[in-house]
């Protein structure tokens, strides 16, 4: 019983905060240590509660199979009973009680020496005291039952009563604030600061003030991280200075670079339309084109990644501002241990590109505009649907000198096809047949497998997921795993050119993801995933169907995810937007 109440207490504290009511005399930050490492402030808990307990959400959650499954768990139903008892005792519903208890805001801080403290500001000091008394009573009863009556202790300090109900816990009530710490000494220090006798506080920290200014005004929750202090940790500084693999370097270098230059991170979470928006800001900017990982540096203010392309049945798209030539030229510095593998890759490229140097004669021919598009595909009726079904994926780049580079790329791609066909031939597998069709006014190359239906009526072979294509409209180069996606991209690029789209100024990475389309491809592969789940997890078919169904539900609820990262007002900024819809 006691454990459940502790859970409830944690739940209550974890979910709550200060409503935008009268600003208290001293902000919570003035009770925290000046060298706090991480500070999370939930400034508008009632907004969160209002959304979390809105009728739509409650109905959607309670009707979901995952929820139904959880209800069978005895621990969960025990918890719900406790909630009911609590609601009866205070003659109100849980969201209202929580809202009042935490309406002034919640602040959680991790300070040096593994100390963790929390400040919860109630709207209703009397209710706070009542709930506290109630919980103390429960704790005492429980301690009595376990023959440990001394477990609940109290002591006075600076005229405030401090309480302990567990070894790693100490708390006190100061006015309408509940303060909790994992060590009693930490509680005393907070009370010293409250009495303005504790020396410098976080509110005095210039770093904190600066970070806070950068946070989004509309946010209901904010996070502050003292990066300068955390970077003293060797693990973190190592992680910021090393790249696991070339792909990770290519994708994350500008963000890691910015963190290396930064003293703080400030994050804000805000409701935006139907979804939630997370903004991450740091004070450092990595824009040195001479640095080994400076291949995403902007030459001028208008430079940046192009907006993402849009095609039918699109699952995801990514647009990067990356100078591939600079990236590859710095490979020895970026990943010294992987030289052998990279050289081998270079050798293969050397064959495809007829001995041209990959760095200076191939990658140098590209502009820093790299886009990737992933879309679900339609299949030829003559073949049927393969199992598993892969989405089509394509990479779109831009050439510096299209007339010069077009034949080089075409030749490399046909050599690669030849190699694939030769290797498949050695294994007695069907090969690709090359075609040069025209789409709009673009003549392009594609290669596909001759249609063949399996005699025994089973699904088409996995090879029918691929009909690779190379198209080079204007200065663009499209390399796609399917012919269909290549054509859709030719159309999308034409639209972009006609609309004279401009780059997203000072944005180096932009990603969009469509949840319903992702759910749709999951649905197409449902049978295979269920079977995989059965042997991987030892589930029955029914259990496997439940798990895959749950994944489907979550993905369909995720309507759209967008991320963009770049430089705004001299700070590095990463913005994420998550739009959700009610599950079907």
């Amino acid at each position: 019983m006691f454990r459940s109440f502790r859970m409830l207490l944690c739940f209550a504290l974890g979910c709550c905060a200060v409503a935008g009511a009268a600003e208290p005399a001293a902000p919570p930050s003035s009770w925290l240590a000046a060298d706090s490492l991480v500070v999370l402030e939930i400034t508008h808990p009632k907004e969160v509660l209002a959304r979390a307990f809105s009728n739509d959400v409650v109905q959607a959650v309670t009707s979901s199979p995952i929820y139904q499954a959880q209800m069978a768990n005895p621990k969960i139903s025990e918890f719900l009973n406790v909630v009911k008892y609590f609601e009866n005792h205070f003659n109100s519903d849980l969201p209202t009680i929580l809202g009042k208890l935490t309406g002034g805001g919640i602040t959680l801080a991790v300070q040096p020496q593994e100390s963790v403290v929390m400040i919860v500001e109630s709207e209703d000091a009397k209710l706070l005291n009542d709930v506290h008394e109630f919980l103390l009573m429960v704790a005492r009863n429980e301690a009595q039952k376990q023959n440990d009556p001394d477990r609940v202790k109290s002591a006075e300090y600076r005229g405030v009563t401090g309480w302990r109900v567990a070894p790693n816990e100490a708390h006190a009530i100061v006015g309408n604030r509940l303060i909790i710490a994992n060590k009693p000494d930490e509680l005393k220090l907070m009370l010293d600061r409250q009495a303005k006798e504790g020396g410098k506080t976080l509110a005095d920290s210039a770093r904190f003030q600066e970070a806070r200014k950068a946070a989004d005004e509309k946010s209901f929750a904010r996070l502050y991280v003292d990066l300068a202090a955390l970077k003293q940790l060797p693990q973190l500084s190592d992680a910021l200075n090393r790249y696991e693999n070339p792909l990770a370097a290519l994708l994350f270098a500008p963000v890691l670079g910015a963190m290396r230059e930064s003293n703080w991170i400030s994050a804000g979470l805000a409701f935006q339309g139907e979804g939630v928006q997370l903004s991450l800001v740091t004070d450092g900017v990595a824009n040195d084109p001479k640095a080994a990982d400076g291949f995403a540096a902007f030459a001028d203010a208008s430079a940046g990644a192009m907006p993402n392309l849009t095609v039918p049945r699109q699952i995801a798209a990514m647009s990067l501002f990356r100078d591939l030539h600079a990236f590859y030229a710095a490979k020895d510095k970026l990943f010294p241990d992987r030289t052998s593998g990279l050289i081998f890759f270079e050798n293969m490229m050397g064959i495809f590109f007829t001995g041209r140097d990959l760095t200076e004669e191939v990658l140098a021919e590209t502009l820093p505009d790299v886009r990737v598009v992933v879309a679900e595909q339609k299949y030829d009726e003559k073949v049927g649907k393969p199992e598993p079904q892969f989405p089509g994926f394509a990479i779109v780049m831009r050439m510096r000198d299209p007339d010069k580079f077009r034949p080089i790329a075409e030749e490399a791609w046909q050599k690669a096809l030849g190699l694939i066909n030769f290797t498949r031939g050695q294994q007695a597998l069907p090969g690709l047949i090359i075609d040069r069709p025209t789409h709009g006014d673009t003549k392009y190359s594609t290669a596909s497998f001759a249609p063949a239906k399996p005699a025994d009526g089973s699904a088409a072979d996995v090879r029918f997921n691929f009909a690779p294509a190379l198209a080079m409209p204007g200065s663009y180069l499209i390399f796609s795993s399917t012919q269909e996606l290549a054509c859709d991209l030719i159309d999308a690029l034409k639209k972009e050119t006609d609309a004279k789209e401009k780059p997203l100024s000072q944005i180096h990475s932009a990603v969009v993801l469509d949840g319903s389309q992702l759910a749709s491809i999951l649905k197409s592969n449902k049978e295979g995933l269920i079977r995989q789940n059965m042997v991987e997890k030892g589930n029955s078919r029914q259990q496997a169907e439940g798990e895959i169904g749950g994944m489907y539900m979550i993905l369909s609820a995720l309507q759209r995810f967008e991320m963009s990262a770049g430089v705004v007002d001299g700070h590095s900024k990463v913005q994420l937007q998550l739009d959700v819809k009610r599950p079907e």
Partner: protein
Amino acid sequence: MPMNAIAENTTPKPIDAGWAWARFEPDGQRAWTLRWVGHLYRRAAFGASWQQLQDALKAGPQATIDGLVKPTAVQAGADASSGDDAVTRSGEAGALAAWWLRRMLETPYPLREKMALFWHGHFGISQARVKDGRLMANHVSMLRKHALGSYRELLQAAAQDPAMFLGLNSEASRRAMPNDNFARQLLGNLTMGPGVCDEQDIKEAARAFTGWFVLRGDLRYFEREHDTGVKTVLAQKGAWKPEDIVRIVLEHGESARSIVRKIYRWLISEVEEPEESLLKPLCDSFAQSYDVGQLVETMLRSNLFFSETAYRRRVKSPVEFALGIAKGMESIVPTLPLGSALANIGQQLGDPPTVQGWPGGRHWISPATLTGRLALADAMLSPEGAYGGKLNAGSIAKKHGSAGPDAAAGFFCDLWLQGDVAESIRKGLKEAADAAKSPAGDAWFRDAANRVIRIPEFQLS
């Protein structure tokens, strides 16, 4: 549960064949006890749940064997995981082993899977050589279909199975250059055993297989490449074709003897080589019918099967070791990770090491493979990791009324070893149980189960 009295060795020596193969009828000297039930389920299946053991104890030996030989569920047309073919055909790494292991656990007809596994080793065809998941899955289906049927039909089917030809490096056999790999295996391991016929027989038999090619996964016959001449195989002359060679070699007395000996090793004992006279009645009848089901049934129902000559006289293969644990724990386990764990302790389903299959017996056991076995058992019973808590020793012990440490330790010992272990070991288990003052959570049960698995007898079938 009291320890079962170790039955006196009632086997007369030298063993009288008449007594040996007569039906076992329990009497005062050899009662139908849990000890024999456990023995039967280890050999004719992949172990048993507590309920199965108890049911069999009530039903008696012959009725229990009826259920193993002709399960009512199968007669009604049901079989577990019959839909596994589609996945195995995909040829993904590990799919064949994963779905076969799952079938072994779920099937109402474990004896058929047990014999399919026997034939898998016997034919020794390996995915590493076949290199085609679909063909390999078809090969295993063929073994399963004929597992308890006629060996004659099984061999004829094998002579039409592309996986056999690929697995024996016989994808092409031309008139001008006969490939003798298939004939060598057919006249050796598959029938009479190695060293019975001479090179000339193999060369002649190989000519009968000319004209057969595997092209893009299909077995094809080209008349122009077939050597239509007269061949002399085992002293029989004729313009033989493959099916004739199968017939001729099965007519040789050594073929039936060799297969009976192999199945004796599989079902009865791998410790002592049986006397020729002991096997004679079985060989004589098998040479007539080549009816595997009948042979297996005779062995399982026999006095000899329920005697000290057979009891714990086999080393469990890795598959038997792992599935015995899962069966006792009454749950399906994640068979994909299990398949690769078994490969590392010496038994990769779908990939026997050579065309001789797995030699088994003492060869399964080395310090490394034993460590691997114990670590695998521990992982399977763990709530975390690849096996994700599918096997819960605590809940099984409690379900069968053994909630306390002492009772649970005894329960696992009864479940897997039918309590048939030395008094000192029982004492050790009890001491460990007593030392566990207040078993919090299920961790203690897992340790107790592991302790029983670490008893040497657990490695024996």
